[in-house]
Structures are given as structure tokens and as C-alpha cells.
């Protein structure tokens, strides 16, 4: 087969090999041995483990997006979220019992946060679910602390020099979630529509929420007119 022009149309020769591989065989064996021992000793059952995986899989960035959209539309909620993030998440029916402490970092006109865990891959899993592979990669963890603006640029994010970029390295017992700025042109959107603008990456701080497209704004405005007409 001609490598340069594979049948799927992708130019496979154009980029370096994907370096994200799974855990090494030794770690897989270690995990399996420890898991089997814990189950054999009755510390937990295989069913407990399956249920825990189900709980983890049910957590998605949509939870975070709901929280952010609510904070954008309700200033009192935003104050509560910044003061006590776990209590505010509970208010939004996100289960954060038995999960690490959480702090929400508010982006402003002058301050932009980006989150990393240089020591391992700490991440607000209770809110966002499983972290993306790039967040756990050595490349991201090593580079974002040293050249945050360069890394942000690779995500398509360029911030004025007057904005302080603050990298927050979650080295200990806290998990961090970024509260991005509400994008311009979103003032007519409902809370549910706003939530669709909030992506996982902007709650890590590597991107900004996209301004709603002109069509989305028109649709929202038309929907509002219909609601007004109906009353």
C-alpha cells in the first residue's frame, strides 16, 4: 500500500506517530492482580466495581456546562459557586458527595485561568467526567506551565498581553474548574442555549466559549418572538 496516499484519504506520512499508548503491560498486570485480590478478600465486589464505572461514565462535561450557564444567568448563584463550589454543584443536582474539594476559578476581562496537573492528571472528574488524553499527556503537562500562551495558541486561543494568564497546577487536594466569560452576542440566549456554548476545553481553560453564530441568534430571537406572540 502506498503510505503517502492511503485509501482513506488521510496523509499518514504527514504527522508523527500518535504517542498516546495505553498503560504498559506491567501496570495492566499489576492492576489486574490488585483488583482480583481486593475482590477475593471481600474489600469490594465485582458488582461494586461495575457500578462505580457506571457512575464515572455518567459524568460528562454537560454537567459543568449546566453549572456555567446557570452562573452566567444568575449572579447570586455565581457568588455561591465561587464561595462553595460543591454546595453549588449539589444545588444543580450534580452528585459531588465523596469527591475531592472543588474550586471554581472565574475568568474576567483581566484574568484567564488554565488548569493542569503537572504531577499526575488530577481533574474535576465529578463535574467533567474522564479527562481527555491530551490533558494527561506529558507534553501538555510539561509545556503549559512553561509556555502557556504557546499552548493556548495551539488550541486556537490568543489572549491580549494585558490579560494575566494564570496557570493553576492542581498539585494537591483541590480540583479546579474554570468559569469562562460569557461570550459576546449571547445576551438573548436562554440558559439551555447558553449551556451548548460551554465545552469541556473552556472549563479547563484552553479555549473560550464560541460566540453564538448569527443563525443561532436569529433562531433564539424568533423563538422568543413566538413565545411573546403566544401570550
Amino acid at each position, binding site marked *: 500500500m502506498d503510505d503517502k496516499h492511503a485509501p482513506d484519504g488521510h496523509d499518514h506520512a504527514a504527522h508523527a506517530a500518535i504517542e498516546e499508548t495505553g498503560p504498559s503491560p506491567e501496570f495492566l498486570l499489576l492492576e489486574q492482580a490488585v483488583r482480583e485480590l481486593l475482590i477475593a478478600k471481600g474489600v469490594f465486589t465485582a458488582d461494586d466495581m461495575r457500578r462505580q464505572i457506571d457512575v464515572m461514565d455518567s459524568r460528562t462535561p454537560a454537567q459543568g456546562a449546566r453549572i456555567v450557564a446557570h452562573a452566567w444567568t444568575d449572579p447570586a448563584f455565581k457568588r455561591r459557586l465561587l464561595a462553595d463550589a460543591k454546595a453549588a454543584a449539589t444545588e444543580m443536582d450534580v452528585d459531588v458527595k465523596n469527591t475531592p474539594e472543588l474550586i471554581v476559578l472565574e475568568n474576567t476581562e483581566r484574568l484567564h485561568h488554565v488548569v493542569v496537573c503537572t504531577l499526575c492528571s488530577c481533574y474535576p472528574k465529578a463535574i467533567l467526567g474522564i479527562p481527555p488524553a491530551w490533558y494527561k499527556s506529558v507534553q501538555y503537562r510539561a509545556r503549559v506551565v512553561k509556555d502557556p*500562551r504557546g499552548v493556548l495558541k495551539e488550541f486556537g486561543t490568543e489572549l491580549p498581553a494585558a490579560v494575566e*494568564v494564570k*496557570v*493553576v497546577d492542581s*498539585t*494537591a*487536594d483541590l480540583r479546579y474548574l474554570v468559569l469562562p466569560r460569557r461570550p459576546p452576542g449571547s445576551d438573548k440566549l436562554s440558559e439551555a442555549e447558553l449551556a451548548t456554548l460551554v465545552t469541556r476545553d473552556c472549563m479547563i481553560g484552553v479555549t473560550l466559549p464560541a460566540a453564538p453564530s448569527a443563525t443561532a441568534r436569529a433562531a433564539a430571537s424568533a423563538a422568543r418572538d413566538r413565545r411573546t406572540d403566544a401570550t
Partner: protein
Amino acid sequence: MSARFHVGDAVLVRNAWPEDGPTRVHVRTPHYVRGQRGVIDRVLGTFPNPEDLAFGRPGLPAQPLYQVRFRQRDIWPRGGGAPGDSIAADLYEHWLEPATTEQGHG
């Protein structure tokens, strides 16, 4: 343990390298902040010391934990970025000493 430092206090991170010693250790203080001067941004509460927890010990008394902010350019003078950019790490109290405004790069 009540917190020794308050928001706005200048601190110096100990320039210690316990991982170079003869015993196995678990350390949560990233290399890049050791010996650096920072400012307390948040007082985060107390937590059992992970340096003990990692070896099955109770980690008590719980250690005060702080979010400490550093100037990006103090840590990486040749790095890119704007003069106001910063980096923060969460550090346990026993890694911190009070700093005057002149100290740093220990």
C-alpha cells in the same frame, strides 16, 4: 493546625530535594517552584499530609494547604508570555517559609 500564612503573604518555597536522599519519599511540591518566591493567593484548609499517606501512615496532624502564586517570568525568565502572567501551585505549609520582598531563587 491553624494556618500560619494569610492571603497576600510573601513566601519562599524550601529549596529541598528529599527525593535525592536515601529513603523513598512522596513529594507534591513541583521542582519548578522550589527555592522560588511566591504570594499566598488562597488558604485552602487542612489536609492529611500526602507525604505520609503515600506510605500508609495517617498523615496527621493535617497540614494547612495554600494556593501560592508565582510570577511566570521568575520561574522561566526565557519563557514566552506577558510580564503579568503567573503560575500557581497548591503547597503544604511545611514547604513554605516567610519571605521578604527581596528573596527568591534560593
